[in-house]
């Protein structure tokens, strides 16, 4: 077993801030904006590394949702099209272990991963679809830690 490889069966945690979800008929619905990322590589934490929920959340008002690596990878080929609808590139979606250790402005996080595309996404519209997919997967689970309850 390679500890640096994120296996398909692994659970992944994602912190969700107030305003990035809503509740409809008692069900938590996660917004696509919960997966905003300037570099188009949304961060998640590997669950088995048992990071404290208080550290995963940036604030007690955040909730924590969960994704499964296999489901994230199920969109394994993301295609990019030009203005005429012609396929110009194909990207592979993966979950990469990117531990944060000894970074000057960030606390250590050995569980840190990124949802990345190879090659990197160059168009915003494709990343928007990826965010929709991630939000849909997260909504199936809802919160495993509700805001203010950890």
């Amino acid at each position, binding site marked *: 077993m390679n500890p640096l490889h994120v296996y398909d069966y692994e659970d992944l945690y994602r912190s969700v801030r107030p305003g990035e979800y809503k509740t409809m008929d008692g069900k938590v619905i996660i917004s696509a*904006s919960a997966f*905003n990322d300037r570099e188009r590589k949304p961060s998640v934490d590997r669950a088995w590394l048992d990071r404290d929920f208080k550290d995963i959340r940036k604030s007690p008002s955040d909730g924590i949702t969960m994704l499964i690596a296999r489901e994230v990878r199920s*969109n394994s080929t993301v295609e990019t099209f030009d203005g005429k609808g012609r396929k110009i590139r194909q990207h592979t979606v993966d979950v990469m272990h990117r531990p944060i250790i000894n970074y000057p402005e960030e606390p250590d996080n050995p569980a840190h991963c990124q949802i990345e595309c190879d090659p990197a996404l160059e168009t*915003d519209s494709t990343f928007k679809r990826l965010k*929709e*997919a991630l939000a849909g997967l997260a909504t199936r689970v809802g919160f495993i830690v509700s805001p203010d309850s950890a």
Partner: protein
Amino acid sequence: MTVAVRLDTSHSMQSWAGSGGESKIATEINDRIRKPLLAAEYRKIAELLIRPEAQPSSNALKNALLFLENLLDRAMKLGSWSSPHITLSEAGEIVFEWWQNDKKITLYFGNNEPEYIKVWGTNIHTEMESGMLTYGWGLTNLWLWLHS
């Protein structure tokens, strides 16, 4: 948190209504009927303007307000208005989201043309459709699809 930002919503209606007497009547209808119905949306957008992480451009703001009033008008005629969930993207675009059973619509208002995404599952290729948002029939069709 108390937000002391007041949103100027007058410009969006002017550009939608045209000019002359028609504009005056449209503005009157807007002030008396639509604006009170959109008070929560205006307040939420005003809150986004003071968020430190990303700032929507004036063009994004203008387009989002214009769209909101236009959609409210159409939705009221169809009898199915519901408030959008409003957020910002990482690029400072104003994002409107609506969910209805297993369907979802997301709209993005940034510096470029507004975009839409129709979502009915999590598969990026087979369960989503995206493109440029057009007013008129394009907007009506999106709203009808969501509620069909």
